[in-house]
C-alpha cells in the first residue's frame, strides 16, 4: 500500500513489516484521512513486529503529528505488536516529537541515526 504525492510518500510493505513516511507533510486534517486509513489498515493486520521509518520525514505539521498519535494508539490497542520507530538527527524536531510516542506506547523502541 502506498500514497505518493509530489511532496510526500507513505508506504506500507507487509512483507518487510515496514511503514515508511518520507517528505514534507503540510496537509489539512481532512487530507490526512486517507493516510490514517492506510496506517490503521497496517496496524489492524496485527503483525508481531512493525518498523515505522521516519528517517526521511522532513516536515510534519500539527495535524500530521495528531494523525501519527492516532496510529500509535491503534497499535497500542492492538496489544500484540512490537513497534520500532527510526528517525534521523538531520531533522531536529524528530527527537522531541517522535520521542513522545513512548508516552502512548511505553514498549515502543526508538532509534535515531
Amino acid at each position, binding site marked *: 500500500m502506498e500514497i505518493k504525492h509530489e511532496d510526500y510518500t507513505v508506504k506500507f510493505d507487509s512483507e518487510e513489516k515496514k511503514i515508511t513516511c518520507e517528505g514534507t507533510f503540510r496537509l489539512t486534517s481532512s487530507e490526512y484521512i486517507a493516510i490514517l486509513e492506510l496506517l490503521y489498515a497496517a496496524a489492524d493486520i496485527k503483525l508481531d513486529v512493525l518498523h515505522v521509518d521516519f528517517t526521511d520525514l522532513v516536515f510534519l505539521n500539527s495535524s500530521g503529528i495528531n494523525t501519527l*498519535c492516532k496510529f500509535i*494508539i491503534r497499535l497500542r490497542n492492538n496489544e500484540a505488536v512490537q513497534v520500532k520507530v527510526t528517525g534521523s538527527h538531520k531533522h531536529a*524536531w524528530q527527537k522531541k516529537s517522535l520521542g513522545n510516542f513512548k508516552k502512548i506506547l511505553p514498549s515502543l523502541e526508538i532509534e535515531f541515526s
Partner: protein
Amino acid sequence: MAKQACNCEKSQHPLLSELKALQEQVAQLELEKQDLQIMLDMTTEHSDTVEEELFSRAEETSRESERKLRLIIEATPVAVVISEVATNIIVFANEIAGPLMGLTTNDLVGRNITDIYADPSMRTQLIKQVSKDGKADHVELEFVKKDGESLWADVSTRPLVFDGKSCVLSSINDIGHLKQLNEASRRFVPREYLSFLEKDSLIDIKLGDHVSDEMTVMFSDLRSFTSMSEEMTPQQNFDFINAYLGRVSPVVRNNYGFIVKYLGDGIMAIFPGSADSAVQAGIDKVNQVNSYNVERAQQSRQPIGVGIGVNTGHMMVGMVGEEGRMQGDAFSDDVNLTSRIESLTKHYSVSFIITAATKNALFDENQFNIRFLDKVQVKGKQKTLVLYEVYDADLPHYRTLKQESHESYERAMEHYYKKEFTKAQAILFDVLQKNPKDKVAWHHLIKATQCLDNGVPENWTGVTVMTAK
C-alpha cells in the same frame, strides 16, 4: 429469611453486571481521555518545536542573506550607503563610501546622512519618491565632503530592511568629472541647441541631425573690425573679440535663441520661437555695444559699431561636417539673404535691419520702433526685399528725433515710390533739418534728387539694385 436473601442475590446480579460494564466503560473513557490529553500535549509540543525550528531557520536565512548583501556591497566598486528611514542615520557604508566623502567608513557610519547633503530637504524628497515608486533611479544630488568641497553624484536608491529596520540603500556614483565634461561640452553645443534638436545629451548628436521649420535667423558683425585688428597684436585681438562676444552672446540666450556658430567676430543665431524675441535680442545686442562703448571711451579707446540683420523664413538647422568634426549650421535661401542684409547695415549706416518677413511675423510690432528702410534687390537674387530699420537702440536723443520725424519720413517715401520726387525731397529736407544725422534720410534725399535731375524710365520701380555683395 434464607429465601429472601436468595431473592435479593438474584436481583443484585444484573445490577452488578451493569456496574461492572459501567466501570469498564469508565476505565475505557478514562484511557481515551488520557490518550486525548497526550495527543493534545504532543501536538502542542510538536507545534512549538517546529515553530522554533522554522523561526531559527528564518533567522539564519535572514542572517545569511544579510551576510551575502554585505559581501556584495563590500565588493561593489561604487559607494554604497544604507541609512535608516526614520532617523536618517547611516547604518552601513562600504569601503568606497567613506573616502568619497573625505571620511573613513567608520566615521561615516552613525552619522545623520543629511549632514553630507548640500540641501538636506532633498533627503525627504528622495524618501518620498522611494516610498511612492519603490525606487529612485539616477537622481543627481549634491553632497558636501568633509573639507567643504562639493560632490555631485548620481544616486540610485531602493528600500531595504536591514537589521530589522526600515532602511534605504543608495549607490552613490561620483559624476563630478562627468558634470565638468558636460559643462565643458555645453560651451561647444549649448543646451538650448540640444533641446532644439530634441536630444538629451551631446552623445546623441549625430551628423545630419536637423530641424526644418520656419524660424528667425540673426547675423551680426562688428563694424571695421578688420582695420581695427590690424593695429592689434594677436593676443589683443583675442582679448578684444572675447570681451565683445562675452557681452553680446548672452542676449541671444536671454531671448530664447541660441548661437549656431561664431563667424570670426560675427554671430549666427537662431530663434525658433517668436520673431519678437529675435528683434528684442538685436536691440539688446546694440544696447550692450553702446554700454561697452561707454567703458571703452573711459579707457580712451575708439567706439565699435555693430551691424545686425534679421530675417524670418523656412530653414534647416542641424549638424554638418564629418564624423570626426562637426558643428551646427543653418541653411536656406533665407539664411543666405540674412547674411547679405547684415552687410547692408554698412551701406545704410544703420545698426539693425529686419526684413518684411520678420516684421510681418511679429506678434506686436508696435512694441518696437521700426521704420521703412528700402526696397532692394541683392546681388545675384531676383527677389525684391523690403527692409526695415529697427532704431530702438539708437542713442536716446537720435531715437526721439526719429520718432518725431517717423510719420513725415514714411510719407516722403510714399511720394518717392509714386515718382513724386519733389514732394519727397521737400519732406526729407524738413526731416534732415531737424536731424541732420539721419543718414537714411540723406540716402533717400540723394536718390530723390538724382531721380529729379536725371529723370526715371517708365518702368521705374524704385528698387535699389545692389551691385556688390
